[in-house]
């Protein structure tokens, strides 16, 4: 039986004194994603064809490779921040919430690293 006062329940374990960094990063990454995604779509669509060698040659240019890596990293970061919000909204059991959040972080680091590796491999191989 929970006999704590209503105020004690609201105060709980106190303020985490964090959250502003998460909130602000979410805004900044979404702003960064606007030019990055426009650049990505416009560059892809303006390629003469989607043949393997055409796309690889485009990726081999330093500017494309650099922006693609940024795109992958920022998109993964933004997605991780967004999924964290959804989990915090809906997963109420503390244990399940923490495990899910850690799993999501791992998955995003993996996706980001795999994306960077893929860009580098294509770019460096085609550049030879």
């Amino acid at each position, binding site marked *: 039986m929970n006999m704590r006062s209503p*105020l004690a329940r*609201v105060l*709980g374990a106190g303020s*985490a*004194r964090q*959250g502003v960094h*998460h909130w602000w990063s979410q805004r900044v990454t979404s702003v960064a994603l606007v030019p990055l995604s426009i650049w990505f779509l416009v560059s892809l669509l303006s390629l003469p064809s989607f043949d393997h060698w055409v796309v690889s040659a485009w990726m081999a240019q330093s500017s494309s490779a650099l922006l693609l890596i940024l795109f992958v990293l920022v998109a993964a970061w933004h997605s991780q921040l967004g999924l964290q919000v959804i989990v*915090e909204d*809906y997963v109420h059991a503390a244990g399940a919430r923490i495990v899910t959040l850690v799993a999501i972080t791992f998955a995003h680091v993996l996706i980001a690293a795999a994306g960077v590796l893929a860009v580098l491999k294509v770019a460096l191989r085609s550049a030879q």
Partner: protein
Amino acid sequence: MAEFRLPRNSRIARGVTHAAAAGATQVRAVRIYRFNPDSGENPRLDTFELDTKSCGPMVLDALIQIKAATDSSLTFRRSCREGICGSCAMNINGVNRLACTTPMQELQGDIRIYPLPHMPVVKDLVPDLTHFYAQYAAVKPWLQTRTPAPPDRERLQSKEEQEKIDRPAACILCACCSTACPSYWWNSERYLGPAALLAAYRWIIDSRDEATGERLDELEDPFRLYRCHTIMNCTDVCPKDLNPARAIAEIKKMLVERTS
């Protein structure tokens, strides 16, 4: 996980229909949520056929009339009947509002009245607001200072400074906003909700208050503050035309500004 269905003992059954008195000329059906914790039964939806000619124009008038003439066990809160005490907040035709300032004429079709959503129900239209009030108390809704007040007068505030708190201070704590907020439905244990956050904001921007930093510290929390996702239901329903969503956005802005 969040609950998307009512628990079994909260599902609403069909209730009884009280036919209009003979000779009634302007009959409207008023469907009202009924729940009596002592009966051990599930809640039900009763229908009262009301002769709107025989009562005043507002939804509260209808409730008072039904209680007086048809069913004295009908339970609801009211006091001022002029939109200033905040007691009569309920969900009327799907929207949280004050029964005393909602004209029946503005409602389409049958009138459907439920208690404020997602709160424990004490009886009929009376929700348990204990937690909601504790959240208000948690933001320390009073002036905090270190500078002693001038011995011979009140603490001064310019006209512009007063105007900043004029609107937020008009909140009547009716709970229409918080109980319309999906984030509050899912996480009210830890999310303070728009009403308490508006109250916190009212003291954060009070030029006489000297605890601004501590107040912001207390709010900077993934749950207390950042469960607000700017859905804006709060601002839509506020019967006093206040803007809790903007107050919350301002608090978030102040938290960013003090880090850079």
